């Protein structure tokens, strides 16, 4: 199992959807950190409460993008991916992440 701390391993201030939106976008996180980790490990745990906050475009591209890009299906991600969060203020991001994964349609 691999644990990814978004704040520590990626950026404390992740913003934007695509690489063109900024240096710490959802696309960059998915392509450089999340997708390789999911490919190499059976289970990946992503800790979300060490960053400043998240815009929905970042979360949708990072997590929903896994389904849109046909890297994994939503069912596979339910088995492989866990979202960890201890701060109550960040719990709704976990709900959003799973919502985006389930709503995403393979392109």
């Amino acid at each position: 199992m691999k644990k990814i701390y978004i704040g520590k391993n990626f950026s404390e201030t992740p913003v934007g959807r695509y690489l063109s939106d900024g240096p710490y976008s959802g696309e960059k996180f998915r392509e450089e950190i999340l997708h390789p980790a999911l490919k190499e490990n059976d289970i990946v745990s992503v800790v979300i409460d060490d960053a400043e906050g998240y815009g929905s475009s970042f979360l949708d591209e990072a997590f929903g993008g896994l389904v849109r890009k046909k890297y994994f299906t939503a069912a596979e991600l339910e088995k492989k991916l866990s979202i960890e969060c201890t701060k109550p203020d960040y719990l709704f991001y976990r709900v959003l992440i799973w919502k985006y994964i389930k709503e995403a349609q393979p392109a």
Partner: protein
Amino acid sequence: MKRARHLRGNEGKRVHKRLWLLRRRDKIFRCKGRRPFGTSAAGLATNEHTAASVSIGEDRNLVIELPEALDFEENYEATASHFAVLRQAVRQRKTIRRLSFQKLRVISPAAALVLASEVDLWNFRTRGRLVADIDSWSEEIKRLLCEMGYFELLHIRKPDIAWPKGNIAFINFKRGRIKKIDPGPLAKELRIEIEQLVGQPIKKQILFEGLSEAMTNVVQHAYPDATNITLKQWWMSASYDFTSKRLWVTFFDQGAGIPVTLPKAHFFEYITGYDQFWSDSKKIEVAMETGRTSSGQTERGKGLQNLVEFAKSHVKGQLSIYSLCGMYRQNFIVKNNEPVASTSRVDHAVSIGGTLIEWSVVLE
């Protein structure tokens, strides 16, 4: 037009889109086919009901006189008309001799931000040669603009006066140029500055989310046809009333506007073109409710809905979006631990010249 018709493929699409945007912008300036606009002696479009005070001096240069009150609530048309005349004069590179603050007695923080952005662009065009004739300004306007950071933004000499501390505190106007700044650290910096202003922690992740999404929206949608990086800018301000515990955060860009960047989303709209008859406020409402934006991609457009969260997460919150001639507002009041929302929208005759986002929340 001839050239564009002969172009094929992506180049043709690009040229057609640019022509469409230019035509759309022109239509907005003429205010959707109504004829409230005449042409002033200075050759600038003015509204006959709310005509901006423009005159031509002996040296044939323009003198624009600001009205007594500048705000977007009670005096929208007069406020926006004056800003439109200033913007048009700057863009047409007319020589403005003076922007008179002599009559000005009241200015709201949102109007001050838009005024500062217009003067900022004028200052850029004149290569920073503007001088403030503050002796003619009222004491209240001097104090307000000093506290809002007007002089720091424009790099002009600030009056050397120590004002007594008032009930309302401000953070200095901020300007950002897209592509030059990483929005993340800047949004965090602004969030910290706002917390210092109010002197208590606020829902940090939600404010960060709102600010960063507002900046990302400017990058993604606001300036589809601008080529000059100095024109792709946004401005921000915040103020806090210690008596009512109300915080205002205001964000402005001079981009194409949400009504212009809103594409057709359904096949029916392509066939009938009925969305052409929607007012600007209706288009903002549609963009907010369906998450539809210029990208046309179904997964995008969530950013506008993100803006609501900061207003929604407080006991009393309000999000107002002014874009071109429209204004759309969502009010939230928490009743029985659930936010109850109400919406309103208004259309005006004069465009605000971009998009103004204003959050207003009462802190607990």
